[in-house]
């Protein structure tokens, strides 16, 4: 008995083992692969996959077989993928199953169902329960803000589906709700009806909402769809969709049999109206679909009409001429025949226009093929042919040709060639397209030619990046202002994303050393200290400026450095010349008419190095200025310059403590200067100290006018109402109350002892490079006295000549009642002086004395005769040694 029971048990175990082996074998043969098997209140599988044609169709994680009969499976993650052949077209002739197959009862629970690999739609991950008992299938699926229930009774073939949720779960950019209800039969050929309601639907960016209703009926491959909008539907970018009548479409499989639509899109550029309808079935042979319609464009930026008809699955677009936004136009002069099929080809003879540019196709053909790849339907398309570009753009005569193909697989063909001409400007562009065949796309365009007199040679390399496009701009040119050198080189890594070009930090433009006229321009560089953003708002970023300075035979500008910070149409700049302790700050903004304006301030010390090219040497002092500038085809500027504590030397002539405020106006090369209030100089030493000098100044740099000139001089003063330099005629300078004692003190020790005051006037003509005195007159303003003290030099003169001795004796002590002096000097330096002295000598019993003295001398020749000639000669000799 025991033995029979044991045999029975053994047989049962063997049978079960055999069944398990058969099941495992069947599953393996069906493409099921498992891993990480285990047991935890039932069989568990850590991972399993269903493989079809070397493609993972289904992948599961953490499966638990909770019961065998009825089969109950729990699955934590189930992901489904599309394993149809990559480019194989869907066949409309695929047979549809007659219903769901018979299965044993089961219950399948999936915590996370991921269909993103199967459907090209942003479906959320769902929880799902599929239950079947007595061939009654029930499906429940849910996700946050979405739910779906479906039933199928295999015996009756009845199916039903209900679903609702938030639109954003399937259309992330939309708001509103959707409700879906459908029911029908599926026992053999399926049929049924489906109604979809979209309630308060609209893009998230728009506040306007609309209700959309769509109802569809189908039986086998034949279907009808009717959709209607209750209110205008707001779309993005201020577009609105309205339906004048419900959209009604009918078809068989992918073929359109009947259609009727009257839709209107209205937006900022205008309106687009579509009207289409099938021809009456009575007028056409059975089985052939045909219809006609019109697409009409109206508005500020839209114009034109396209009449079309379709017949036997061919859509024909009649010749049309369309105006599109942004000055685009499209035109075709022959009917375009487009197969209404998943794949096909058609000739596309087009003329396109943009502003003054026209593109005309030569041979031109488009082919396409709808393919399923990686879970999504994709259109594989390609245009092939040749293009000719002609026209005017931005004043340039543009011409170009290209032959090749462009499509979903990129570009291929000849290099793109373009030429642009305007006057003497001529630019040639060449861009190979061999690197544009597949992503990441990239190419290097070359440009050569002349622009605005500048020879240009550059390359623009670009390539697709993660965020857009990127590349490097390299260009070189030679500035025509330079007679030697002056080569400009630009190297700028760039990227393009969201309509903004970004030049990377370190982007640099430099100008090499060169000559402009007789000025040697040291190298100049501009370098971006951070990214430079360039978009419709302008340029944003900071550029560091460094210039090596300028050098000419007589003057020198030391190195300059600074920054320019741009923010859209605003710019702020700062330049410093450290050797001169000078700083200039300027800011500006672009105006509406293409001009610019702004303010500027400057501050500088006066240092000797500034005088290299001048006849004066600044010793110390401070300059400050502020003003405004404006650029509108010409430059205008105005402002005030304040000079304080300035000391200047013209050789032995020195000015100390100069101060004043000068207002300046600059207008396209013309300069006007005028002092605001008096310009003052504490001391002007021309060999004779002039103190407390005040005057006002007006000048256009070629003509200087000094007015209201006042100064103290040797205990007296000088006055001049106006002094022009250069002047065509003598201008009076009045001097008065000159203390002769201070005149005598100019020489140390004084050769004579003088007292009393004199005055008069000295008419001066200030030439460009000469000085004349015409009929200058001085006279005593009170009694004068003269004493010639005894000295060895006087005794020597007296001993030399009896007449001189007699004169010296008479003049040795003199009370002067009348002093008259006349003087004149011509342009070449001849000075003529005549002096008459009348008085008495008290030491000679009031001996009356009349002394006449004339003198003629060339003061320039005198200067040349001095020892400085030898010093100059030595200087010139030693520099050549």
């Amino acid at each position, binding site marked *: 008995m025991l033995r029979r029971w044991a045999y029975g048990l053994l047989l049962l175990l063997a049978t079960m083992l055999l069944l398990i082996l058969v099941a495992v074998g069947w599953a393996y043969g069906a493409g099921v692969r498992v891993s990480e098997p285990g047991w935890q209140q039932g069989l568990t599988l850590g991972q399993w996959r269903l493989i079809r044609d070397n493609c993972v169709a289904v992948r599961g994680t953490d499966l638990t077989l909770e019961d065998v009969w009825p089969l109950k499976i729990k699955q934590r993650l189930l992901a489904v993928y599309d394993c149809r052949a990559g480019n194989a077209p869907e066949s409309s002739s695929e047979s549809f199953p007659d219903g769901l197959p018979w299965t044993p009862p089961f219950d399948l629970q999936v915590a996370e169902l991921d269909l993103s690999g199967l459907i090209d739609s942003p479906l959320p991950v769902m929880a799902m329960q599929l239950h079947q008992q007595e061939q009654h299938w029930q499906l429940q699926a849910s996700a946050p803000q979405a739910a779906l229930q479906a039933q199928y009774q295999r015996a009756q073939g009845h199916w039903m589906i209900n679903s609702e949720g938030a639109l954003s779960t399937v259309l992330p950019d939309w708001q509103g709700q959707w409700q879906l209800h459908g029911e029908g039969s599926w026992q053999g050929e399926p049929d049924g009806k489906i109604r979809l309601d979209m309630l308060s639907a609209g893009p998230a960016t728009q506040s306007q909402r609309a209700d959309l209703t769509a109802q569809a009926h189908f039986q086998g491959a034949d279907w009808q769809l009717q959709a209607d909008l209750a209110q205008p539907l707001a779309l993005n970018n201020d577009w609105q969709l309205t339906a004048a009548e419900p959209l009604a479409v009918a078809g068989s499989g992918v073929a359109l049999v009947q259609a009727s639509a009257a839709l209107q899109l209205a937006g900022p550029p205008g309106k687009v109206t579509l009207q289409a309808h099938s021809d009456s079935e009575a007028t056409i042979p059975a089985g052939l679909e045909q219809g006609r319609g019109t697409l009409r464009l109206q508005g500020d930026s839209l114009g034109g009409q396209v009449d079309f008809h379709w017949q036997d699955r061919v859509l024909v677009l009649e010749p049309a001429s369309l105006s599109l936004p942004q000055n685009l136009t499209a035109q075709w002069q022959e009917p375009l025949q487009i197969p209404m099929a998943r794949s096909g080809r058609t000739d596309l003879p087009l003329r396109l226009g943009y502003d003054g540019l026209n593109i005309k196709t030569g041979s031109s053909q488009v082919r396409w093929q709808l393919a399923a790849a990686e879970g999504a339907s994709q259109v594989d398309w390609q245009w092939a042919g040749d293009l000719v570009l002609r026209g005017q753009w931005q004043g340039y005569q543009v011409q170009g040709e290209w032959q090749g193909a462009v499509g979903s697989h990129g570009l291929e063909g000849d290099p793109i060639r373009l030429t642009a001409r305007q006057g003497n400007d001529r630019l040639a562009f060449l861009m190979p397209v061999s690197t544009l065949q597949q992503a990441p796309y990239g190419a290097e365009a070359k440009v050569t030619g002349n622009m605005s007199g500048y020879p240009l040679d550059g390359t623009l390399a670009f390539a697709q990046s993660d965020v857009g496009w990127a590349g490097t701009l390299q260009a070189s040119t030679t500035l025509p202002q330079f*007679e*030697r*050198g002056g080569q400009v080189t630009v190297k700028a890594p760039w990227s393009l994303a969201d309509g903004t070009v970004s030049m990377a930090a370190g982007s640099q433009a430099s100008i090499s*050393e060169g*000559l402009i*006229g*007789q*000025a*040697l321009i040291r190298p100049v560089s501009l370098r971006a200290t951070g990214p430079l953003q360039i978009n419709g708002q302008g340029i944003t970023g900071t550029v560091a400026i460094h210039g090596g300075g300028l*050098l*000419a*035979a*007589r003057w*020198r500008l030391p190195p300059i450095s600074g920054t320019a910070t741009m923010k859209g149409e605003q710019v702020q700049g700062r330049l410093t010349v450290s050797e001169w302790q000078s700083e200039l700050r300027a800011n500006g903004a672009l105006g509406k008419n293409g001009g610019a304006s702004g303010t500027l301030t400057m501050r500088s010390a006066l240092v000797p190095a500034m005088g*290299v090219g001048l*006849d*004066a*040497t600044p010793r110390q002092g401070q300059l400050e200025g502020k003003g405004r500038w404006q650029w509108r085809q010409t430059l205008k500027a105005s402002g005030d310059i304040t000079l304080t504590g300035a000391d200047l*030397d*013209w*050789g*032995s*002539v020195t000015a100390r403590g100069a101060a004043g405020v000068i207002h300046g106006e600059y207008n396209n090369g013309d300069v006007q200067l005028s002092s605001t209030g008096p310009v003052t100089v504490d001391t002007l030493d021309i*060999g004779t100290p002039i103190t407390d000098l005040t005057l006002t100044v007006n000048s256009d740099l070629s003509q200087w006018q000094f007015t209201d000139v006042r100064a103290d001089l040797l205990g007296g003063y000088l006055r001049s109402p106006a002094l022009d330099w250069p002047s065509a005629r003598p201008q009076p300078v009045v001097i008065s109350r000159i203390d002769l004692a201070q005149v005598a003190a100019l020489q140390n020790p004084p050769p004579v002892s003088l007292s009393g005051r004199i005055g008069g006037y000295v008419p001066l003509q200030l030439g460009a490079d000469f000085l004349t005195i015409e009929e200058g007159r001085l006279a005593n303003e009170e009694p004068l006295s003269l004493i010639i003290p005894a000295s060895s030099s006087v005794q020597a003169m007296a001993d030399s000549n009896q007449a001189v001795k007699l004169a010296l004796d008479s003049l040795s002590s003199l009370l002067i009642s009348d002093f008259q002096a006349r003087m004149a000097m011509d342009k070449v330096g001849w000075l003529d002086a005549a002096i008459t002295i009348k008085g008495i000598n008290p030491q000679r019993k009031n001996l009356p004395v009349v002394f006449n003295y004339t003198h003629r001398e060339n003061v320039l020749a005198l*200067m*040349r005769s*001095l*020892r*400085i*000639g030898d*010093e*100059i*000669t030595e*200087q*010139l000799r030693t*520099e*050549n*040694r």
Partner: protein
Amino acid sequence: MKIVKTMIATLTLLLSMAAFALDLDAAKSQGLVGEQTDGYLGVVKATPAAVELAAEINQKRRDAYERIAKQNGITLDQVARLAGQKAIDKTATGQYVKTPDGQWVEK
């Protein structure tokens, strides 16, 4: 050792000065620079080397003119114009001088 270094430095300085002088004579002979009435060298045919040479010479002349002007109680401009006349007078035949109306002519 220190004496040797000093001698080498002095010799180098003298040689460089000699080379500089040759440069000025050569520049005048080649017609790159010439003398002007304002006492300074002018550039006749602009090259970077000619501009640099003229700037350096003129800087030294200006320093000397200023010193002479201060010592003699006249202006820098007066000294410079006297020097200009002397420089033109001693310019060798065939070298360039600038006329008062601004033209470069071979002397």
